[in-house]
């Protein structure tokens, strides 16, 4: 360990300056803006912005569209985060099995959606969901299910987005789970086998507890990512039909960059921040209690 403060700061300076100026200052500025009515009039003349105290936050509280957006976002997170974690875990366990050949090939295969550009795949899925010419409905019809207007029906629009996000994201967590699985010492399973444990028992009493830290990590990053849902509805539904896929970030974008109510939009961003923080804390608490 080197004890040279000056050189240390020299190395830190560029990155920290960049982070300070282009991240921390904007965060603080956003916080301040969220207490003003900065809007389209203020854009041409900063003097037209006024401090309004907690007005923006109070308005949010009475804004039904905000609650719709919050509700939709929660719907999305609560359904698709566990779902994608389950799919990831299943894939990881299968790929971790000693029976499987060409592991890396399969791993690669499942991973491809993760790295591809969200916009591009959202466009592809839009056509897959096409009520008339899409493959999904065609397949469903083959097995006798009536065609569904996935993106046009408020009851199916969110499920459609959920299915697509699970497909897009499960590979990422799968990799993390594989790493977690490989860290479980083999002797635990061997010992269990000697005692005559079934496959399910091994899963329940060894795999699950041993994976707990990984699952917590995966849960938190997945949740944080999913709370920021934006591009999928932006491309596939524009938040519709009937606001059924309007997400918090999209509402923030609309208020901020469509109606230019930047003060209000900043307040939405901070509520999102608060929601994510609370979610993280809750998950950590649950994990702690489960461990005790």
């Amino acid at each position, binding site marked *: 360990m080197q004890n040279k403060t000056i050189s*240390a700061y020299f190395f830190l300076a560029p990155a*920290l300056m960049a982070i300070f100026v*282009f991240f921390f200052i904007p*965060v603080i500025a956003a916080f301040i803006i969220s207490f003003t009515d900065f809007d389209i009039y203020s854009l041409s003349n900063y003097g037209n912005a006024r401090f309004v105290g907690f007005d923006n936050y109070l308005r949010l509280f009475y804004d039904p569209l905000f609650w719709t957006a919050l509700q939709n976002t929660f719907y999305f997170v609560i359904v698709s985060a566990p779902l994608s974690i389950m799919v990831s875990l299943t*894939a990881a366990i299968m790929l971790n099995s000693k029976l499987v050949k060409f592991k890396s090939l399969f791993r690669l295969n499942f991973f491809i959606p993760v790295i*591809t550009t969200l916009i591009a795949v959202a466009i592809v899925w839009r*056509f897959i969901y096409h009520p008339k010419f899409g493959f999904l409905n065609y397949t469903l019809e083959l097995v006798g299910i009536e065609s569904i207007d996935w993106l046009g029906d408020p009851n199916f629009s969110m499920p459609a987005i959920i299915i697509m996000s699970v497909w897009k994201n499960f590979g990422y967590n799968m990799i993390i789970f594989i790493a977690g699985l490989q860290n479980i010492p083999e002797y635990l399973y061997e010992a269990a086998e000697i005692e005559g444990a079934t496959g399910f028992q091994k899963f329940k009493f060894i795999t699950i507890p041993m994976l707990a830290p990984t699952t917590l990590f995966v849960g938190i990053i997945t949740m944080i990512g999913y709370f920021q849902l934006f591009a999928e509805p932006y491309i596939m539904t524009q938040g519709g039909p009937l606001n059924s896929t309007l997400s918090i*970030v999209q509402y923030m974008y609309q208020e901020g960059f469509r109606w230019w109510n930047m003060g209000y939009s900043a307040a939405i961003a901070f509520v999102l921040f608060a929601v994510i923080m609370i979610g993280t804390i809750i998950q950590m608490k649950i994990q702690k209690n489960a461990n005790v």
Partner: protein
Amino acid sequence: MKKITLHIFLIIAGLLTLAPFIWMVSASLMNDGHASVYPPRFFPDEVTFIQFERLFSRLSVSRNLLNSVIVSFLVTFISLIFNSMAGYAFAKYRFAGKDKLFSLLLSSMIIPAQVTMLPLFLMLKSFGFINTYLAIIIPGMANIFGIFLIKQYAMSIPDSIIESARMDGASDFQIYWKIILPLCTPILVTLAIFTFMGTWNDFLWPLIALTDSSMYTLPVALANLMGEHTKDPELMMAGSVITIIPIIIVFLALQKYYIKGIMMGSVKE
């Protein structure tokens, strides 16, 4: 038996995962209107490159491709230097406030980037950077996750190497440049792919910060196209193919590092 069912299952799951891409490529090779038929066609009855021709000749996608390449390379290059310097300092130096600083950085990772977008927009606007490459490069110059990755990796470099270099009279910067960086190559490659892909795939910020279509990166150009050509799935698919291909090539070439990076990032702090 169990082995066969497992493989069959994996193969089916794998094909399902790939199906959207296969269809994307195949629809991009179809003539106008051939992807909008009932029953849907999985493969083109006749392969044509007309959609790609239209993209490049009429819709000047080459310019967007170039923008994406330039921006992604520059962000990757600059952030690699900035992050590695800071990561190295956090790993191998003792200085006042180090732990506090580091945990402040780590905990601020929870702040969603969206929070900063409005002020950042106004800030870059006042510098006159909106609608230039700088608008994309500047916010990407340093990144906390990158610093974290490098720090984790650099900690495993033995102090003795650094000390012996110092005995030989190497300066601080030389140690960093000549010893640390080469030793960090694997993690640098990892970080490079992460940054490259992140920048390449980014959508919301470029959507806000770039106003002129000649400045758009591919995802923004693609979304732009989507607004107007909803009825031309074949053309849209060709656009998607162009957007995705470079990233898949980069990934396939360097996937080992990428996957390692995910695993490292998930190591419990």
